[in-house]
């Protein structure tokens, strides 16, 4: 049997840790393809351009937008972890778990700016 723990989760730092992990996993899955496309530049510039022009299609731009947002989220939640670990805590109920929101807002704003520039 699995004992339920659902109501012990759901607080802000829970979502930050899950968001940090999932965005990291998604980025790790994407990076090998990112490198593969760029390595085409070695000797196959036309197919690199073919892929890059593919990247002009709206669907791909949305995909790129997703990656930029994931990158910002992973970075912002990573900054949260570094602050939690490296800056000494003053007292237990330190408000720093709310740093989550700074990260989410940064991701939304940079995401919007990306869309504005891309289209």
């Amino acid at each position, binding site marked *: 049997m699995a004992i339920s*723990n659902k109501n012990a989760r759901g607080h802000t730092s829970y979502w930050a840790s899950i968001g940090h992990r999932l965005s990291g996993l998604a980025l790790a899955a994407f990076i090998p393809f990112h490198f593969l496309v760029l390595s085409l530049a070695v000797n196959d510039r036309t197919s690199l351009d073919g892929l890059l022009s593919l990247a002009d299609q709206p669907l791909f731009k949305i995909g790129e937008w997703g990656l930029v947002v994931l990158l910002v989220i992973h970075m912002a939640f990573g900054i949260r972890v570094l602050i939690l670990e490296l800056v000494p805590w003053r007292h237990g109920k330190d408000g720093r778990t709310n740093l989550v929101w700074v990260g989410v807002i940064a991701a939304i704003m940079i995401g919007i700016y990306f869309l504005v520039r891309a289209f």
Partner: protein
Amino acid sequence: MTTLRVKIWRGNENEEGEFQTFDVPARENQTILDVVTEVQRVQEPGLSYRFACRVGVCGSCAMTVNGKPRWTCRTHINAVAKDGEITIEPLRNMPVIKDLTCDMTEFFQKWQKAGGKFDGTITRKDPVATLPPSDLKRQKADAGIECINCAVCYSACDTVNWDSDYLGPAALNRAWTLVNDERAANRQEVLDKAIGDSGCSSCHSQGNCTAACPVGLSPSQSIHGLKRMSLLSFLGKGI
């Protein structure tokens, strides 16, 4: 008088079992522990559960109530009942002995693995050590010292659930108080254990422990303090 519908886990040590539903009278003032006791006294004498002080001092009555570990003696029914229903399970991350009782042996063994034993520098013949409350290290130790080993944080921790070797928030919180205790002779040894394999490095800053602690302690703060010491000692800073 209205009734309260209580679903209680009835199981054995092989993790086999099922929920049994009891209808008990809903009273104005009763805790989850009162309800479990009423079920056992009136309806099902075979129900196993653990408690001692009934007033939030001993830390033995913790159970999972509606998907969250809690001290049942300090949880008022009105705070958790949803549409007159309550689900009660044993704590998580520990083997069940029977029904709502679990085996806490490994939980306490992990306290030892994390360096939880106090070794003093003086004997009973020496004068009592002076601990100025203004001392920063003392304040850090004091922040975690009120733990009563109830295992609520250990049960709430998903990392323990995913990685059964992880020492967990309670044991690491204890280690943090010792690392900051000027009277402890073995501070370096405790730190080495707490930052070693399955120690503080395994924490993912999820914070379930701090959100669940009935005393309002922050094991997160203690674990992050240990992580900071782990990094700083790697970069050459002493304890």
